[in-house]
């Protein structure tokens, strides 16, 4: 579906430039500070690529994903999708964009309407966009359910979501996202609410669909180990900024940023020897998003902080090795 002519200059399907999304939480009539959820992120995603965004809670990874598909207003910067500026889309144009870019949300329990059957929920995108007639729509629903291996499809269309398990519901969500045959899917922590044992199944399903349909996926996760196996490139976020980006194998195999290194050290592995030694960990907890530290946002927790520099100067994301960029004063 995507064509080369529709891409941005450097061959990216989706490109964010200096993207900022700021929120102003209200309490009563008064504004209380500003949350810089996404604060100057630049990111390009090539067609047929899976890019992982890795970060802990409060890193802004979900907001970044929602900004790319215009579910939150963009404060500053641009998002270009296949040559068009997504930030300024309105009305019918925005609706047309929704058809090309879809989302799979984190919580499969909350993202299905409890009042609609599975069939009606899958039909809804087609109805909204006026695609096909009744029989072709029903056929499309059946095909989508089979695609995500929810079978027998005929039995499931008339059931309500509360009869299904989390993994089944998440597959319904994936099927719904596929109904419009989008080119781009934002998968926002699609497996974090599912049992550890079922995660690999959902992810490999997504990967398989991506390969068969030629889709582009932004995979948002806090689980850096899954990013390694599921994505082509990885972007690590901390407090609204990008700290490291590059091919997943190098970012996770040879991490440069102390934060990325800490994240990797924190991943549990089923090695019985682990119980005899302490893990090296990042101290403290991420600061509140309303009070981002000056200079490098990570300097308050960084084990390799350079006194005098890190507190005052914010490092920029720069290529430290070919294709592998890091925002850290250690590599300047």
């Amino acid at each position, binding site marked *: 579906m995507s064509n080369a002519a529709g891409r941005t200059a450097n061959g990216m399907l989706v490109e964010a430039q200096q993207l900022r999304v700021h929120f102003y939480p209200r309490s009563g009539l008064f504004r209380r500070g500003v949350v810089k959820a996404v604060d100057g992120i630049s990111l390009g995603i090539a067609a047929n690529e899976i890019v992982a965004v890795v970060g802990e809670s409060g890193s802004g990874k979900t907001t970044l994903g929602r900004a790319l598909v215009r579910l939150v207003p963009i404060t500053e910067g641009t998002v270009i999708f296949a040559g068009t500026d997504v930030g300024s889309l309105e009305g019918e144009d925005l609706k047309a964009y929704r058809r090309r870019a879809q989302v799979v949300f984190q919580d499969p329990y*909350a993202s299905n309407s409890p*009042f609609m059957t599975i069939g009606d929920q899958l039909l809804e995108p087609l109805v909204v966009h006026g695609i096909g007639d009744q029989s072709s729509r029903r056929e499309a629903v059946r095909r989508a359910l089979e695609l995500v291996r929810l079978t027998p499809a005929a039995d499931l269309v008339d059931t309500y979501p509360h009869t299904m398990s989390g993994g089944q519901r998440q597959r319904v969500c994936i099927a719904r996202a596929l109904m419009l045959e989008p080119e781009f899917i934002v998968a926002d922590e699609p497996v974090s609410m599912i049992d550890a044992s079922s995660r690999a199944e959902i992810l490999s399903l997504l990967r398989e669909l991506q390969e068969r349909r030629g889709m582009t996926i932004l995979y948002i996760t806090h689980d850096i180990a899954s990013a390694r196996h599921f994505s082509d490139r990885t972007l690590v976020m901390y407090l609204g900024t990008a700290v490291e980006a590059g091919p997943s194998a190098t970012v996770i195999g040879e991490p440069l940023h102390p934060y990325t290194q800490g994240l990797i050290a924190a991943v549990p592995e089923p090695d019985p020897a682990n119980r005899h030694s302490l893990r090296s960990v990042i101290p403290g907890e991420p600061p509140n998003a309303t009070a981002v530290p000056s200079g490098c946002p990570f300097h308050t927790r960084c084990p390799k902080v350079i006194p005098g520099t890190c507190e005052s100067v914010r490092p920029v994301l720069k290529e430290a090795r070919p294709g592998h960029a890091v925002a850290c004063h250690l590599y300047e």
Partner: protein
Amino acid sequence: MRIAAALFLAVVALSALTASLIAPFDPLEQEVGRRLAPPSATHLFGTDGFGRDVFSRTLHGARVSLAVALAAVAAAGVIGSSLGLASGYAGGAFDLVVQRVVDVLLGFPFLVMALIVVVALSPAPLAVAAAIALALTPLVTRVARAAALSVANEEYLTVVRSTGAGASRIVLRHLLPASAPPLVAYLATCLGTAIGAEATLSFLGLGVPPPYPSWGRMLQEGSRAYFDAAPWVTLMPGAVLCLTVVCLVVVGDAMGDPRRGRAGPIRH
């Protein structure tokens, strides 16, 4: 319990509709020879000080009381639900203004609001209905807003939005079906409140004027003149009124029963 309550309500509604057909006597016909007769086979609820049949008056009274209450709840329901749903869904400055106005109106004790409206308008059934409607509207608005808010914050609406659905589809297909059950349940309870309010206003002498035999008016007449000598004149219509309100509350509670959950219809 719920079924009995619903049945009773159906009987009351039906007899109100057909009062002129089924009432054994003319509610206004006076018969001096039968003054203050206690309940009997002929006069089920006895007779009042003018010898009028209390049962027939109760049947006809149901008409006035129910009509006033229904009109009031319909008006408050339409205005309050649309305001509440709109402000809950839209949010922003509109919501803020609606909320402040509702806050001010909620500061008024229910009867005080109804009372000043009745005083300002001339006493007539329509004025009483308007008064009750105005007193109910802020309550309905608040409940509707809460219902809309609880749905509007659901993640699945973001999902629907992300498929490209517009505001009208979201409101009509998702917000309304989800917030309707608690709202309808609340309106049933409101109907009870309105019937009680009509009775209270009429009892206080501020409601439906004579000759309409509304339930509240009958309470007033009976309790003023001959409560001690002929309590049935007051207590019989009072009991019917009371049962009706209780049944409305029971039915309303059943409709809004949290045990039914919000899981949607269950297939068998």
